[in-house]
């Protein structure tokens, strides 16, 4: 009984507390770099597209809003032929970033994407691709991978030995 009255009283005196609301469009909060907002596709240190079209972001996406097609250039380097994110479905959960093995897909601290027309929320690869490395500088997947995709020859990668000469006679 007393606790009920006390709750009422405590609630009542909140009238004189400072309000916590930040009046958003006039005032803007600081967003940390790892805030999960708009999704971008980044480039590697050599300014090439990082995305190798592995489809892991698409399969990780709980709302299935990422769709892409992988393609290969004449060197055998994989990239996305098209890459589409339907932001009208995206829930900014960041699973795609988590799944990305090449640090290509990243969520950035920008959430102001409202549109009057829902169709404008469908972002294609040219809308997503940025000119920098984003949050994770320095990584170039093809220097670590075993394939020769025009970035490094066989055996030239990080932690790789020279290719085996299979016709040598030494054991």
């Amino acid at each position, binding site marked *: 009984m007393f606790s009920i009255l006390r709750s009422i009283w405590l609630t009542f005196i909140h009238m004189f507390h400072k309000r916590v609301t930040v009046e958003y469009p006039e005032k803007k909060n600081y967003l940390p770099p790892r805030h999960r907002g708009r999704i971008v596709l980044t480039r590697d240190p050599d300014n090439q597209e990082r995305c190798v079209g592995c489809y892991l972001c698409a399969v990780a996406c709980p709302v299935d809003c990422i*769709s892409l097609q992988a393609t290969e250039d004449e060197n055998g380097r994989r990239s996305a032929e098209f890459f589409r994110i*339907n932001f009208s479905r995206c829930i900014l959960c960041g699973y795609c970033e988590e799944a990305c093995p090449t640090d290509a897909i990243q969520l950035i601290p920008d959430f102001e994407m409202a549109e009057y027309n829902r169709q404008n929320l469908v972002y294609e690869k040219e809308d997503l691709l940025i000119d920098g490395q984003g949050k994770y500088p320095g990584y170039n997947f093809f220097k670590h991978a075993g394939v020769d995709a025009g970035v490094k020859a066989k055996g030239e990668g990080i932690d790789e*030995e020279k*290719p085996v000469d299979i016709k040598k006679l030494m*054991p």
Partner: protein
Amino acid sequence: MMAKIFIDDKPYEVDGSKNLLETALSIGLNLPYFCWHPAMHSVGACRQCAIIKYKDDDDKKGKLVMACMEPVADNLHISIEAPEAHAFRAGNVEALMTNHPHDCPVCDEGGECHLQDMTVMTGHNERRYCYTKRTHNNQYLGPFVNHEMNRCIQCYRCVRFYKDYAGGKDLDVFAAHNDVYFGRQEEGVLESEFSGNLVEVCPTGVFTDKTLKKHYTRKWDLTNAPSVCHQCSLGCNIIASERYGTIRRVLSRFNGDVNGYFLCDRGRFGYEYINSKNRIITPARLVNGSFAAITAGDAVQEIKAIINTENNTIGIGSPKASMESNFLLRELVGPANFYAGVPAREGKLIRQVIAILDNGKVKTPSLSEAKTYDAVFILGEDLTNTAPMLALSLRQAAKNEPNEIARAVKIPDWNDAATREAVQGATGPFFIAAAHDTKLDDIATGIYHASPDQIAGFGNAVAGNINRQLNFVAADAEIEKLSDTISAALLAAKKPLIVAGTSLYNEAIVQAAANIAYALKDRGKDAGLIYILPEANSIGSALLADQYLEDAFAQASPKEAKSVIILENDLYQRMDKTATDTFLQYFTNVISLDYLENATTRNSTLLLPAGTFAEADGTIISNEGRAQRFYQVHVPKNDVRSSWKWLAELMAAYDSSPINLDAVIDRLTAAFPALQAIQYVAPSAGFREDTQKIPRSPQRYSGRTAINADMHVSEPRPPADPDSALSYTMEGYVGIPPPALTPFYWSPGWNSAQAINKYQIEVGGELHGGNPGKRLFEPDPNSKAAYFNSTPSACSPKEGQYMVLPLYHIFGSDELSAQSPAVAERVPQPYIALNDSDAGKAGIVEGAIIEILLSGNKKWLPVKLKMGLPQGTAGLPKGLQETAGIIYPFYTTIKIAGND
């Protein structure tokens, strides 16, 4: 022999003739493995399937053994879960991973990789080895298979399949220890017709599908359908897969009675014509010499008007089209106006084969059962090119007799390495009588090359040897000697198998093969008889019509006929160009239902886009008389649809209610009670598993809310499928569906094709629910089939003329698969093949250009000297664009070009 074993203290009743790995997998336990394969058995190379085996009940320590190399024994105690075994398996994977590259994101195997699955299964999840990785250079292996040797884990499955199982000669192992290399001696196209199976056999991404690589999609994103290969008459079961409206790949669909685990390269890589730019995708009408697209509704109305105003529309069926399509065309135009879409010579031959199958005197074994025969006699077929998967089966059959050596020293059948060591490459009785050398010659114990009629005569001589009452005599002493050998070997065998076919268009060969089989049967042998037919539904379409193209051509006259409907058939491939031109010119309306532009569609006035096996449902009947259902993979965003759907729309009777596949089949079986079995080939459209449809896509299918977002941000409703119990989405029953409706293989923890283990009652054996397909012809013990008495005249080469025989090419002789870019790279240039002594006499050398008369027209072709082609015969590659419309065999003259 059953045995009781204890796995982790749980008792199981198991088959005593198996090894422990097979046994554990059959029970449904998860035990990792790499080198073992249910079709290739154990060699114990990868050390992955380690388990603990205990001496007896009291033994608490046990010892580590490889499950795949240990036989089941009664009262045996083993442990899969023991910490030592677990640690050993994890350590083994960790060791394999030291050199495995960081490739998964760009590796085509990713997501269906046996190595990934096994790594997860063993629990190895962190790389501790921080030193360098060994690397290898890759090789170009042709248009089908991609090579990425860095990923290799040295399980030896590839060479064991390629060399030991499929008889390939050009893939081998090089170097030693950590540097072991699997590849060719030097870069080049893999010669084997079964190289595509390396993609499925390799547990990781060393060998991957190059056609898939061009439009790569992960397994989880594919929409699949259970389908049946349409590229030859064997009816191998396949899984065809789609993404973004194009067909991405074909995989083998396990059917223990047909193709088992494997597929030939034509079947696997010949699908790309479906995505061709030459596809007819919209109905079109000929206006002033060019085609103008019209709407489906207009097209149907127009054709209906044409059919209704005349009552003598004729229909031409097709051995490529399904039973349903052929049947509805027959209904639409009336049986009297319906013609089988093949020349009379071929059609009558097929009906002869059907008659022999139907009388049931000897059994026609399935493709898979053919592996169990221990003596083989092939008459007149180049199997590697006309029925590749049968050639693969017969390679296994050739091992049966020598394998008795191993059995005699108590080596179990599953112990592959020991069996091969005991056998030392010996082959069993295997005889080939053919018009030229074939790729099976390397395992043959007797070869006879002759002209078609001589082959038939030789076959009859063998039959006469077996059944002395038959009045056949050998042509000469040499033949008599060989026929004695063959008949003795066939009689000595437990299960002799006779293989023949229609490829030489010789009725006498077909009858001679039957004579041999009958004779063996009458001597009490469990004989088998297999016939190879020209096309996927040759039997089925022949069952529906007994009038042929010649009849249609003869019947047509400018006064009579006004319209013709041609079903999935390029008449110019089958009949002479001039005759076909004349025939088509008689008609005011030539209505073609076809997939690809071809000479016939170019000479048509109305086109309807027909669905290939990827866009159509239907039933086809394979060479053994097995009716099998294939299902549509996806609903294309154009007017392409099953031919029978177009025909149903054209039929007035179907105006009122929409018609589905089941309704067509009901009508078909009502009209042809002998085909009743077609109804039971697969569950009907109303079938539900747990009240749900069976999804064509895996649970993890991605991008559903983005795929169509470029067109419109609102997602469209997924298409409905009124024709089958499959749905076009990922939603529906999760679990193991009936085998005829299995669109893909997946089981928790098993993402690779090896998930098939979970779909089989016993690994490598029958599927849960039985192998799909229904056989129309079964052996009849009371059959009173009579011997054929046609004694063919020994072919005497006509003076100054050559008898031209068709030469078959796995890549090229089928006009559709030849239009797939990858297969097209392997299609030979047109040539004429000559016997080397004939050529020597005429002073012709290899590569010389020769002038040949082809149905009155001069053609110039380069010469190839074909070993084994009999004197007085020449060969032309069948089915190439340059050699279309020839009816074989024919006589012609040749001369060196320019020497007039």
